[in-house]
């Protein structure tokens, strides 16, 4: 019991209760399954809040550690090793929050194979929380790969017309990315005689040239997941084909696995290599920001636009992470959360309108605000948050990131890049306004689009949001304002861990 009742173990594996319960619900009883899944995911969220309650932000060590030997034979030293700190706690909370929201969002959209769908979602939650909480590289790899499977099915079974293609592409790309990481993990495990991350960090002593190779190996896996420019090619496919909730989780959490990987593994494990790589990663991040923003603008499909905007936003995150100062890293971590909230909410909203209109082409939209005032208002708020309007969450992250990046440029972290990275990235702020406002304009402003008539033809009138849908987004709206206006509690959670992390770097 002691093993099970540990908070972190409970956070990760509590959804299993739901999985087991779902197995015994007859497949005709769809509502019971939905409620079960929702209840379990909400309970998981509550558990994560309990974890938050027990969390001591001022302590930079891992907390609520669960550590057991798992495989220790013949030179292997693999542990069941969980721990939480300021770098991961918000991401765990994000995961546990977004899961019930996603489940709620597909209440009516998914009518087929509800049981499997819910099971996959709960499994996905297990995988994601696992990634954020494990401190053993080997176990990390297992969870990392495990997250692929449910997502693969979610896209592949409940996705759009080209779902199988998208699912396979998603799977193969991310799996290809993790190959090198696996080798690097094995190398580390062999070299350091342990897979425990804190121990490996404490040992240090990896020669600089090898560090670089390992850094690249890890970065390959994470960069594809993020996805960093130019490895983003799988993202639009996956997003466009994924069902709404899939997109929400994909954008909201799965992409964060990549950025989280960088801050959790790459930076502390390979500090020298990190310093060398910083300008290059920052360069890619900057290109990603501009490129993603430019490409977003030219998309004919709403989901694709949002997908590419993720490339841009995560460019910011990468830039912030490799600014290697507290402002940048903390901003980047907060921006991960922000992106999860904003883009997650955007996908939710797109899904809501898609459920009614069955099209995502801008071409046919227009003037929706008149028919859907509440929806329009919510969409606007979320869009603004996504483009970083001060007072909303996106700004806090972007500002601190850019501020950090500018400082990093001045302090020589980016070498030849200097302040140009931050400066050019700031142009992304303008470009974000262009594509976000363009999207909003094309959907909600202007004369009424064909879609209204088209939808009528199919015997449905476009309606405004119903209560379930509003309830689905309201938590995210609250967070959008909360983080935008009063991010102090969030920063307080992140800051000590970030300061500690920065303190370990051999900065010039």
């Amino acid at each position, binding site marked *: 019991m002691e093993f099970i009742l540990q908070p972190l173990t409970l956070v990760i594996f509590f959804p299993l209760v739901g999985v087991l319960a779902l197995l015994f619900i007859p497949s005709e009883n769809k509502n019971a399954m939905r409620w079960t899944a929702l209840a379990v995911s909400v309970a998981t969220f509550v558990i994560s809040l309990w974890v938050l309650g027990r969390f001591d932000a001022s302590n930079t060590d891992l907390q609520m550690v669960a550590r057991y030997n798992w495989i220790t034979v013949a030179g292997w030293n693999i542990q069941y090793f969980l721990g939480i700190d300021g770098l991961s706690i918000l991401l765990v909370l994000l995961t546990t929050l977004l899961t019930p929201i996603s489940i709620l969002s597909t209440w009516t959209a998914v009518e087929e194979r509800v049981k499997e769908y819910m099971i996959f979602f709960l499994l996905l939650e297990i995988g994601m929380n696992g990634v954020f909480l494990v401190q053993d590289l080997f176990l990390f790899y297992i969870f990392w790969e495990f997250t692929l499977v449910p997502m693969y099915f979610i896209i592949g079974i409940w996705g759009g017309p080209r779902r199988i293609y998208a699912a396979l592409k998603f799977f193969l790309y991310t799996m290809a990315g993790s190959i090198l990481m696996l080798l690097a993990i094995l190398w580390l495990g062999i070299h350091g005689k342990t897979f425990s991350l804190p121990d490996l960090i404490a040992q240090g002593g990896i020669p600089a040239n090898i560090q670089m190779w390992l850094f690249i190996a890890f970065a390959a896996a994470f960069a594809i997941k993020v996805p960093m420019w130019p490895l983003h090619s799988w993202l639009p496919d996956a997003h466009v084909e994924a069902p709404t909730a899939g997109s929400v989780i994909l954008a909201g959490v799965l992409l964060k696995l990549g950025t989280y990987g960088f801050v959790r593994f790459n930076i502390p494990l390979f500090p020298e290599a990190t310093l060398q790589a910083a300008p290059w990663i920052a360069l890619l991040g900057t290109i990603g920001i501009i490129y993603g923003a430019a490409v977003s603008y030219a998309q004919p499909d709403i989901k694709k636009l949002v997908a590419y905007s993720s490339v841009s936003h995560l460019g910011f995150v990468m830039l912030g992470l490799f600014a290697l100062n507290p402002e940048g890293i903390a901003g980047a971590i907060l921006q991960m959360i922000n992106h999860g909230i904003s883009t997650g909410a955007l996908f939710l909203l797109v899904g809501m309108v898609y459920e009614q209109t069955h099209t995502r082409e801008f071409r046919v939209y227009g003037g929706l605000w008149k028919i859907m005032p509440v929806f329009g208002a919510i969409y606007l708020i979320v869009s603004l948050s996504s483009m970083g309007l001060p007072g909303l969450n996106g700004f806090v992250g972007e500002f601190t990131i850019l501020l950090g990046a*500018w400082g990093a440029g001045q302090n020589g972290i980016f070498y030849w890049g200097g302040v140009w990275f931050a400066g050019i990235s700031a142009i992304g702020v303008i470009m974000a306004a262009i594509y976000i406002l363009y999207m909003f304009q094309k959907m909600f402003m202007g004369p009424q689009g064909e879609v209204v008539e088209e939808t009528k033809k199919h015997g449905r009138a476009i309606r405004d949001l119903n209560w379930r849908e509003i309830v689905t987004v309201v938590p995210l709206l609250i967070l959008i304002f909360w983080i935008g206006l009063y991010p102090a509690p969030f920063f307080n959670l992140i800051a000590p861990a970030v300061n500690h992390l920065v303190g370990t770097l051999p900065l010039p």
Partner: protein
Amino acid sequence: MHLSESVNTGFLFLAPWLVFFPVIGLLINTLFGHKFSERMIGAVASLASGAAFVVSVLLYVTVSGAHGEAMRWQLAEWMHIGTLSLDWTFRVDSLSTTMMLVVSGVGTLIHIYAIGYMHEDVRFKNDVGRFRRFFVFLNLFIAAMMVLITGDSYLMLFVGWEGVGLCSFLLVGFWYELDLLARPSWSNSFAAVKAFVANRVGDFGFLIATFIMFWAFGSLQFDKVFQQVPTVAPGVIIAITLFFLLGVTGKSAQVPLYVWLPDAMAGPTPVSALIHAATMVTAGVYLVARSAPLYSSVPEAQNIVALVGAVTALFAATIAAGQFDIKKVLAYSTISQLGFMVAAVGMGAYVAGIFHLVTHAFFKALLFLSAGSVILGMERGHHHAAHANHDNHGKGKKGKRKEERHDARAERSHSDSEGADEAHGEVFDPGDMRNMGGLRKTMPVTFWVYMAGMVALSGIPPFSGFWSKDEILLDASMHNQAAYWLLTIAAFFTAFYMGRQIWMVFFGEARHEAAARAEESPKVITVPLIILAALAVLGGALNLPFEGFHNLGHWLEATLGEVESLPLNLQVAGISTLLALLAILISWLMYARKPFAKDQTDPLASLGLFFKGMNNKWWMDELYHLLFINPYIKISYFIAEVIDWRFWHDWFHEKVIMGTYNWISFTGLNEYADQKGIDAFANGLGTWTQSLAGTLRKVQNGFVRSYALSILLGVVLILGYLIFK
């Protein structure tokens, strides 16, 4: 939780309520407004704004009790990370109090005005439900503006700065499905987007400035920054101030980012008055004034700011003279006047700049609102005319709008041949001055208040505009000759286009049925106009250039530091007054001596290309399209379609990576992945795969001898390696 050292903080604790009141107002209207009547909604919003005004007055009392000393009230922590430490702190000093009073005062008047205006506007445009939304946005604007002017750090200022930008977007795009003439169109929404994007370009500059500032000064808080000015290299400060200037050009519609403001007239008239004339657009001026210690330390930057302002002032004034839309004229006038203010603060004449800001808020709000009243009057007149037609033809009520269109098409005959404005002639344009004429008779109150605004703006003594403008010119004559002459010529043009407008709108004969049947506006509209007219006439008293009357100057001293209080310079004042009178005379000669007739070409057209330039805004929009917008769109599409999709996604990832994979595996992931392909694939590998499977599958040919051969091959290879290695 106050940080002020002074013992008597008085009403300082109310500072956050400047923001909270409007927010409460908008929340009430948002959540419960659907149950309210229009009056109730208007009352809630106006009360919210009024409460902010009351708070402003109380704060004024408090600050004046402390002799303008800055007081700060910390509400909450905001961002604390690394060395960055920012709080939600409200700063109340003489400068911000002045702004507060203007914003909340004018704002409240406009709220009240809008109750009447929007009541009619939403009916003309057939969407009664949108009434509530307008007041929500308006309250939001007040809140954002309050954040802007009370922020104690550049970043909090920035929050308001972008917040008002958002409100501008929302309000410009208020009739998002229409165009200026209420036809279904994308144009209003484009105007909204344009406003926001142009502002964002400026915000980019603002952001960069804050980055430089933070890493140079270690803080973004006003006092901490200003204290360290002497210790920081001037080059850095120049960079900061110039990047701020970019922000200023965006927000205060200066060259080169002014292009959004004329289009912003797509918003309802109260919006034009409040946001795009009186308050929001002056934020840039406020920013420069607020950063006075920075600007004052770098004259190079000051000169650039002054020149930007002066050039804008003249440039926009010329365009204003060539416009036919009553609001467009005012819009360009606003840009021009903002140029005056920016030039003033650029030259270090902060008091003059703020002074002009205040008086301009009065008279330009007045002018806009009056113009709104004119437009409503025209609409009403048109409405009556349409009704008359309708009754004559005896058509069903439902055909009304169609009928209007029809009429409009019939009116095409008297659209002018210059036809720069294509929209003209399609439908009735209530804002086109060529449709007006003789309105002084039908709308007397409006006429008189408009006159008040006109003389104030034209700089005729002793109206408010004269005093403030004169102070700017005086400063310019002492600091920057180039700016001085540019501004003086701009003043001339100002008087000219205002004269032109007055003659065209209110004098002569009605050139359109609607103008003939125009109707005076109700009290809820005219009363605020009268109050504003009084302020426009008397506002100059705030800071007369006579010893002992430098009230505003002394008041602001506490914030802006020692300011020189210049006495009246008769030469400067004389030149500008004479030029103004001359300009009005010329306009009279051109437009009133022989009243502007129905299908007449503008007399200015004799200027040829010059007039065309003025009329077409010097083709700046076209130039921007050519230089920035079209390239951006093209590049975006190029990157998205050619580079990202066709090359990177399709060619590289599909053909090269997947293709190689397919080639190696002799099967088609693509083919397979497509649902159709799956079937093809499943129906036995088909000839396609067979032909591709040139090697592998053919090698596995089913012949046992071949298999044996493979074994032998392995043997030979292995033995060969081992023997000959």
